[in-house]
C-alpha cells in the first residue's frame, strides 16, 4: 500500500533528504490531520481508497473488543479480583491505528493505555490477562502492577510506571536501528502531561540531533490524570515543540482511525527515508477515568463528557463501515459476544493458575545470585518454613 505524503494539512517532507538547513526547518502542521470526520464527512478520499476496507473492518472489530475487555477489567477490579486497571476507552484509534500503520519489526514503547499495540500484533490475550492477574504465566512474574506487561515477541517493550522514561529509550532504540543499518523505526506513546517531563526534552532533542528514525506519539486526551491541558502547558499545541527540536511535527485527529494511520504511516516513511523523527500530537479524549483509582466526576463536567462522546472514534468508523456494507448490528453483537466470551475464558484460566513461586523473587537481576541474594533467599525460605505468619499470596510453597 502506498501512501501519499502530500497531506492537505501537512507540507511534504524534504524530498531530497538533505541535511535540514535553518532556513528550511522540517514542517510543523498544527491544523489537525483528518480523513474521516465525526459527522461522516470524508476529507481525504484518496487516502481512504488506499486502505483495504477489510482491514478497517478488522481494526474496528479489534477496537470494539478492546472496549469489551476494558469494561470487563474495570468490573473485575471493582469486584476485588484485579489490583488495578487503566482503560483505553475513547483512545482506541491511538493504539490500533499506529499498530496497523507500522511494520511488525518496528519497535514500540507504549505508555500504559495501549494494550492494542501488542494485541494487534498477536500478543496472546491469555498472556495479557495472566499479567493483569499476576499469575505464574505472567511474563513479568507478578512483580509489576497490573497493566505493566511486556511483549518481547511482538517487539513491544515493557511498560514503566514513571511517565516518560520510554521517550529517551525510544530515541536510543531508533538511533541504534539507524546505526545498525536496519530500516525499522521506533515509536513511543505518552500523554500530553508527560510532555512536561524532562525525559521528553532529552528524547526529542537527542533524536533530532541524531536524525533517529523515531516517532513520538503524544496522546493529548486533555487531562494529565486530573490536571487539564491548560494547566500543564501554555502552548496551544504540543506538536509546536517540534520546532524547538528541529524535527517534524504533526497534529492529528486522534479519534479518526484513518487519520492516525495516515499520520503514523507518513512519519514512518519520513523516518525510514533518513529524515529523522516526527512528533505526532493526537487530539483525543479519555472517555473513561484515568485509572480505577481515579474519578473524573471530581474534575470535569458531565456536559463536557457528553460532548466528547460525539468525537468517539468507534461510532464514526462504524457508520462508515455500514455505508460500505461491511458492518451491521448482527456483526456488532457477534463481535461483542465473542470478545466477552474470549476475555471471560481467559480470566477463568488466569484466575485458576497459581501465583509465581516466591523463590523467583531473587531471579533475573543478576545472571547468578550474589551471596547477599542467596542469603536473603535462604532467610525467606526459613521464615516461611517457620510458619510464623500466614501469607495469602504464598503460592510458592
Amino acid at each position, binding site marked *: 500500500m502506498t501512501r501519499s505524503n502530500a497531506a492537505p494539512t501537512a507540507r511534504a517532507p524534504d524530498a531530497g533528504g538533505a541535511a535540514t538547513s535553518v532556513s528550511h526547518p522540517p514542517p510543523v502542521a498544527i491544523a489537525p490531520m483528518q480523513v474521516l470526520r465525526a459527522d461522516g464527512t470524508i476529507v481525504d478520499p484518496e487516502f481512504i481508497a488506499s486502505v483495504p476496507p477489510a482491514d478497517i473492518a478488522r481494526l474496528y472489530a479489534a477496537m470494539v473488543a478492546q472496549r469489551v475487555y476494558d469494561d470487563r477489567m474495570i468490573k473485575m477490579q471493582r469486584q476485588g479480583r484485579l489490583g488495578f486497571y487503566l482503560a483505553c476507552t475513547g483512545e482506541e484509534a491511538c493504539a490500533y491505528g499506529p499498530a496497523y500503520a507500522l511494520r511488525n519489526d518496528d519497535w514500540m514503547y507504549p505508555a500504559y493505555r495501549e494494550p492494542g499495540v501488542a494485541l494487534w500484533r498477536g500478543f496472546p490475550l491469555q498472556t495479557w490477562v495472566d499479567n493483569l492477574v499476576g499469575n505464574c504465566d505472567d511474563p513479568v512474574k507478578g512483580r509489576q502492577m497490573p497493566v505493566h506487561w511486556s511483549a518481547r515477541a511482538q517487539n513491544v517493550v515493557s511498560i514503566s510506571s514513571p511517565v516518560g522514561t520510554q521517550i529517551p529509550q525510544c530515541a536510543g532504540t531508533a538511533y541504534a536501528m539507524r546505526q545498525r543499518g536496519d530500516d525499522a523505526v521506533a515509536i513511543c506513546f505518552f500523554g500530553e502531561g508527560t510532555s512536561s517531563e524532562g525525559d521528553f526534552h532529552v528524547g526529542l532533542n537527542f533524536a533530532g540531533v541524531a536524525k533517529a528514525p523515531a516517532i513520538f506519539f503524544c496522546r493529548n486526551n486533555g487531562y494529565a490524570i486530573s490536571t487539564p491541558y491548560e494547566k500543564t502547558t501554555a502552548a496551544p499545541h504540543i506538536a509546536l515543540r517540534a520546532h524547538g527540536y528541529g524535527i517534524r511535527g504533526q497534529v492529528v485527529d486522534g479519534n479518526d482511525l484513518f487519520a492516525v494511520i495516515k499520520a503514523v504511516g507518513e512519519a514512518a516513511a519520513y523516518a525510514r527515508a533518513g529524515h529523522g523523527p516526527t512528533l505526532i500530537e493526537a487530539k483525543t479524549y479519555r472517555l473513561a477515568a484515568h485509572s480505577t483509582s481515579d474519578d473524573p466526576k471530581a474534575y470535569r463536567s458531565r456536559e463536557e463528557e457528553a460532548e466528547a462522546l460525539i468525537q468517539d472514534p468507534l461510532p464514526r468508523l462504524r457508520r462508515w463501515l455500514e455505508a460500505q456494507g461491511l458492518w451491521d448490528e448482527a456483526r456488532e453483537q457477534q463481535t461483542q459476544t465473542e470478545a466477552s466470551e474470549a476475555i471471560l475464558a481467559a480470566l*477463568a484460566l488466569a484466575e485458576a493458575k497459581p501465583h509465581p513461586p516466591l523463590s523467583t523473587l531473587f531471579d533475573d537481576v543478576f545472571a547468578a545470585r550474589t551471596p547477599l541474594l542467596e542469603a536473603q533467599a535462604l532467610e525467606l525460605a526459613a521464615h516461611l518454613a517457620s510458619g510464623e505468619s500466614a501469607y495469602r499470596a504464598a503460592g510458592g510453597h
Partner: protein
Amino acid sequence: MAFEFKLPDIGEGVVEGELTKWLVDEGADVAEDTPLFEVLTDKVSAVIPSPRRGRVSKRHFGEGDVVPVGAVVLTIEEASGSSAAAPAAAPAGNAQAAPEANVHAAPKASPAAVPAMEPVAPLAQASERVRAAPATRKLARSLGVDITRVAGTGDHGRVTQEDVSRAHTGVAAAAPAPRPSAPAPAAAAPRAPAAPTPPLAPTGLGADEVQKLLGLRRKISDRMRHSRDTAAHFTYVEEVDFTAISVLKDQLRDAGLRTTYLPFVMKAVAIALQRAEFHNINAHVDYQAGTLTKKAGVHLGIATATDAGLLVPVVLDVHGKSLRTLVGELAAMADAARANALPVASLSGSTFTITSLGKAGGMFATPIINQPEVAILGLHKIEKRPVVVGDAIVIRERMYMSCSFDHRIIDGHIGAAFVQAVRELLEAPALLLADLR
C-alpha cells in the same frame, strides 16, 4: 455455599470507604456483575458489581457506614454451579486465616477477632454515621473539628470539606460547649522540623524497626484519637490519704482476705456515683443524638495492661457487690487477661472507668476518657509521705488521683465535688461502711 464479599481496595492504598447506597435488598437474587452498592472512598466513587451469582443473604453495613477495606460487606448464598467460585473463594478463605485479617474484620462479622473495645464503642459507631467522605473526616481530625457537630450542606446532609473548614474558622463563635483547652489551632502551628534520620544506624544498634499498626493497637489508636477529638477533657488531681484503708486492708489480710486497694476505690466510686448530684458522671453521651444516658447501675471498666495492649474488662453491678466478691472477680479477671482469654462479654457495658498503674503509677496523669463515658479515674502510687496533721508532721499513706472529665457534660465544680466525695469515703471508711452493700 455462602460467599462473603469483602470490600476490595478499589483505589491504590485506600483503607476504607463509605457505603453510600445499597442497590440490592437482602433476599434479592443477583447475577454476576449485578450492581450491589455504591461506595465513596478518598479517591473514587464507584458502583461495585457482584462477583458471584446467588441470593443476598445478609447486608453487613448500612448506608452511611464507613467500611474498612477487607471487611465483609455482604453475604451471597451462591447458586450451585456458580462460575469462578473455586479460584476466587480460595484467597478469601486464606485471608480470614491471615493474622492481619482481624484488623479489617467488620465489627459484627467476627466478635472474637478484636475482643478489645468493640462493645464499648457505641459513640464511635454512632459518629461514623455522619455522612462524610474519609478525606473530609481526616480534614476534620487534623483541624480539631468535631465532625458530629458540623451541619452538612452536601447531598443528603453530607458534610463537605467546605463545611469542615467553615466550622473550623467559625469554631469559637459557633461551638455551643466550651473547649477550654481545645488545641484546635495548634494543629496549624508550625511544627519543628523533624530531625533528619541518619541514613545508617550508629554502630551496634542495628536498623530502626518499622511496625504496622495492626489489630488491637490500631483499635486503641482509633479509640484514643476519637476520644481526644470529641471530648473536652479536663483533669482534676487530688491527694488522698489511704492510711485508714491501709489499716483495713491489713486487718482483712490477717483474716484471710488478701486484697489490693482497688476494690476499696471501686466501692467508694460506686457509692459516690450513686448520689443524685453525680448521676451525670455515671453516664454515656451520644453527641450526635444529643443525648446523655444516666446509667442506673455502676459498671466499672478496669483498664488492664495485656501483652497485646490495653483492654478494659468490666466489673458489672459494683454498687451491689461486696468487697469480697470484687476481690474474687478482679483476681479471675487478671488471670483471664494474662491468659489472653478475657471473654468478649466482659469487655462491654462499663459506665465509668478506673485506670491504675499501681507501683509504676507516678504522681499524676491526664487519663483519656473511655468513650462514650464521660469520666475516668486514674490511680497512682501509694507511698508514705510527711503530712501536716494539726501542728505536727506525721507519716501517712498517700496517693494522688487524677480524674478526667468531659467538660461538655461535667462542669468543673461537679467534677471537683465528685473527686472530693471519693476522697472523703476513702479517708473515712466509716462513711464507706454506711453505704456499703
